[in-house]
């Protein structure tokens, strides 16, 4: 039911963990649905210098989280914001239909982390 790429990212997830003193943190999902994704960012000169994830969820939830970190590492914040869930699924060679809604939230978690980063920037400039 999963592509080889999904299974690769599930069995060998990239960038698992949490960044110490991150510049931004985002968490989406809820335990009722069985998917929670948490992303932490280190941003330098408007680029994502480091990104790590922690995910509670199914194979698709873990694989999409891993793929997002790989896709945006080294990218600018604007480029990261342009990434959406559909693109993540495509990068994995597709996801089973029923997983597209419930488990494909990793880009949302990334966006939440960036929003947190921007919020902190605003507060710091005050």
């Amino acid at each position, binding site marked *: 039911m999963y592509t080889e790429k999904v299974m690769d990212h599930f069995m060998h997830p990239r960038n698992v963990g949490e960044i110490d003193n991150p510049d931004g943190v985002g968490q989406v999902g809820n335990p009722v649905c069985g998917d*929670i994704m948490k992303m932490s960012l280190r941003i330098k000169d408007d680029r994502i210098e480091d990104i790590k994830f*922690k*995910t*509670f969820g199914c*194979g698709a*939830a873990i694989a999409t989280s891993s793929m997002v970190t790989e896709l945006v590492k080294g990218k600018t914040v604007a480029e990261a914001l342009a990434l959406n869930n559909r693109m993540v699924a495509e990068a994995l060679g597709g996801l089973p239909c029923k997983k597209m809604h419930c*488990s494909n939230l990793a880009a949302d978690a990334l966006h939440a982390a960036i929003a947190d980063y921007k919020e902190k920037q605003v507060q710091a400039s005050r």
Partner: protein
Amino acid sequence: MRNVYLDHAATTAVHPKVLESMLPYLQDKLGNPSSIYSSGREAKAAVETARAQVAALINAQPDEIIFTSGGTEADNLALTGVATALSQQGRHIITSRIEHHAVLHTAEELERKGFQVTYLPVDPDGLINPDLLEQALTPETIMVSIIFANNEIGTIEPIDRLAKIAKKHGVIFHTDAVQAVGNIPIDVEELNIDLLSLSGHKIYGPKGIGALYVRRGMNIKPLMQGGSQERKLRPGTENVPGIVGLGKAAELARIELPARSAHLTELRDYLIDGVLSSIAHVRLNGHRTLRLPGNANFSFEFIEGESLLLSLDMAGIAASSGSACTSGSLDPSHVLMAIGLSHEVAHGSLRLTLGRENNKEDVDYVLSVLPDIVGRLRAMSPLTPAKEA
């Protein structure tokens, strides 16, 4: 890599002797049991032999066995058949919150048709309190349907007490015994059971065949119209190879039941003790002792069931989970919710069901890989407390 099949509650491999018994009826012995010539009579005799074999397994009479396409059809026939036949006497049915969907969804369909259904709750071990059944009965109640042993958590219900209460009130008692038959002794006479569903492929028989035991004199209507097969309760040309296979599987189950049950119970307890002692933050779902011989069901905190199943599959282990991802809906298993688990804990469930081919080495293999798999997923989970990661 070792391959270990631990999903016998889902389906079992056809026993070699069962396969052997079926093969002639797929080839040479081609007659239709309704035909008058010799190969037809031969097929008819084979069906009747199988009927007696199935009856013997549950201490019923052969003419009380109706062959169906499986457990689901047997459950549908029991509930809808009785409700249709008795709708003038009353329109209330009692069942439980931990039934298989074949009963649960049939009950819900009957509700849409104007019947009233009471769903009895269960305690944290999954047991139904017979006092609650007593209280739920009304003059309108026509039927009680309670699962004999739960397919997910393995808890064996107090069927003797429940059926006795139904009998006392003159209410028909049905039980879905698909998981229990062949694994624990069942005597429909001693237990006062009026209707009982069973399935071939859960007891090392073929898929696509099952049976409903219908006590003599029971008022029940068929689901389908057609020929006069199966006392008109299940029209259609008999699935002769399937019926012969079910008969053989039932015969083997009856003969081997004490040995199978002892073997499975020993492996199960070894597995349960091994998992509980080697992994932290785990709970056993279902009753510790009043459970099916081959059933173990755990919840591992902080992780989700599908990722656990995928990881086990990569290690050659076939298992099952009650997580939403594997239930095909957005909610985790209704059974795990009924025993009071939170969503997180229900999502992290793992069902391992042993069968006759499993041995101690299989369990040792599971115990050797499971802690690392759980640990790897916990290290990835944001729910895992920092000191556990």
